[in-house]
């Protein structure tokens, strides 16, 4: 009101005019702390969205939610038939079926998160263009959905472990922190591939091959002793640092007695697991945040 006599804004450029009245750039990337706060405010959306996705994925099947348990069970049966019965991969291992299913379910958790993560942005452009929310909600919701799936798988796994005569020990409790570490790792990885997949749509085609190679490098289907026997020393050392192998070994060490492990020292395995969780969790989040303002472009 002080500048009442003349129109004070006649000579201003649009940018100066905007600055004068405190207008902000549309779609500007929020600061990291603000983004994190926003994301926290949207936690109910993340959990509601992941629950909804879980319900929706089974809504057309007659058996409904039962598939959450049936899918891992069938999966384990097929792999056991091929690798346990036909190919005789057991190699004198005490409890091959539990060894196999532990690896399979833990790996599947990451695999499915990554597969769906590549489409987290590109498959939800309608939602992104219609509504305003921190985009990290989408990859995080995918991780949360897969986490719930994993819980179903873990019930099956514990059943198999008990049925194959393993004792219940205190070591079982190790499974909880191991899975939590892997979940954070998955969240970071899912956010990373979500940003990559938003720009490079070919990633969806490439991903299955990357994931299959990763699966063979993680000792899921056969004894990890094969790595040490057949690979040169440096290659075995590389495999020892493979995050998926590490998370799988932690689960196997927790549940199974006398199971073959590639990493002989358990504390070192935990250290590698925590390291990967930090690198991937923080790195993936930062990487995703930096692309925030571009996701609507498609």
């Amino acid at each position, binding site marked *: *009101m002080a500048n*009442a006599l003349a129109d004070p*804004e006649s000579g201003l*450029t*649009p*940018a100066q*005019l*905007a600055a004068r*009245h*405190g*207008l*902000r*750039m*549309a*779609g*500007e990337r929020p600061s990291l702390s603000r983004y994190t706060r926003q994301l926290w*405010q*949207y936690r*109910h*959306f993340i959990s*509601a*969205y992941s629950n*909804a*996705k879980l*319900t*929706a994925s089974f*809504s*057309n099947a007659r058996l409904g939610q039962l598939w959450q348990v049936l899918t891992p069970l069938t999966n384990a049966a097929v792999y056991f038939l091929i690798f346990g019965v036909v190919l005789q991969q057991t190699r004198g291992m005490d409890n091959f079926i539990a060894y196999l299913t532990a690896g399979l379910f833990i790996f599947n958790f990451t695999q499915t998160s990554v597969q769906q993560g590549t489409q987290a942005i590109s498959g*939800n452009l*309608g*939602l*992104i*263009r*219609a*509504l*305003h*929310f921190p985009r990290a909600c989408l990859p995080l919701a995918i991780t949360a959905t897969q986490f719930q799936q994993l819980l179903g798988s873990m019930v099956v796994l514990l059943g198999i472990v008990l049925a194959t005569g393993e004792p219940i020990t205190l070591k079982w409790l190790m499974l909880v922190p191991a899975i939590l570490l892997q979940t954070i790792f998955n969240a970071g990885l899912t956010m990373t591939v979500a940003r990559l997949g938003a720009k490079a*749509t070919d990633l969806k085609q490439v991903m299955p091959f990357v994931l299959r190679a990763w699966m063979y490098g993680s000792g899921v289907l056969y004894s990890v002793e094969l790595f040490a026997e057949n690979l040169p020393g440096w290659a075995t050392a590389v495999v020892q640092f493979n995050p998926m192998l590490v998370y799988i070994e932690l689960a196997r060490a927790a549940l199974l007695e006398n199971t073959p492990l590639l990493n002989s020292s358990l504390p070192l395995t935990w250290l590698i697991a925590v390291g990967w969780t930090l690198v991937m969790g923080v790195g993936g989040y930062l990487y995703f945040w930096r692309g925030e*303002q*571009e996701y*609507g*472009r*498609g």
Partner: protein
Amino acid sequence: MVDYLAMSNDVTVTLPRIKERIPTVVVDDAHVVYRVHKGAAGSSSPVAALKRMVTRTSAPNVRQVHAVRGVTFTAYRGEAIGLIGTNGSGKSTLLRAIAGLLPVERGAIYTQGQPSLLGVNAALLNDLPGERNVTLGCLAMGMPPEEVQRKLPEIIEFSGINQRGDFASLPMRTYSSGMSARLRFSIAAAKQHDVLLIDEALATGDKKFRRRSEKRVRELRESAGTVFLVSHQLSSVRDTCERTIWLESGEIRMDGPTDEVLRAYDAFTNGK
């Protein structure tokens, strides 16, 4: 309208009343480009694809659409602005850019607060019941869960989907197109907005619902600083907006009082 705002404020009544115009949306030479994947069309043989990779030319099945080309205007508090233009002239794209949903390629768009886009296309999950979609949609707009619970019956009631039996608990894929459009609009209209962008949202549903939704939009307008309305129904632009911007091929063809712009637009479309 500005005078009215000043009157309602006790402190400013005694001052000489001039029209201080407070900008809420400043669009400065904005260009919006988006990329569309056309799918495998034309010469998409593997050899051609390899050649493109080697020579580093962009793939022909990615097309850049330069939808908004250098638009500049300023919108002030208390204005209702109509956006008109033929199909594909960039109206909806411009709204999305103002809402911050599409990034600008060049230029800048400044806004007061967070503008809300009231569209009918908010993608929801078709396999889930209507109620669940309401909850999800409201949470996605940033409503706290308690408020969502409180508003849920209101929104269902407003949408009128339960007029013929209990449809709210059925999956959305069983809805008719009119019903799901009504539900989506009801969800979007449930929130208070600062700057309100309305994209063809009034055109859905039957006559009864349209009257109800127009009333709701008027209520929303009263609480919002600035309203943008995209519509092909010129009558609704004439009824609600005093200023109109006419876009053609992504550029501003005319910007002025609604009557003048609509007359010119009529002459243009009839002359074609």
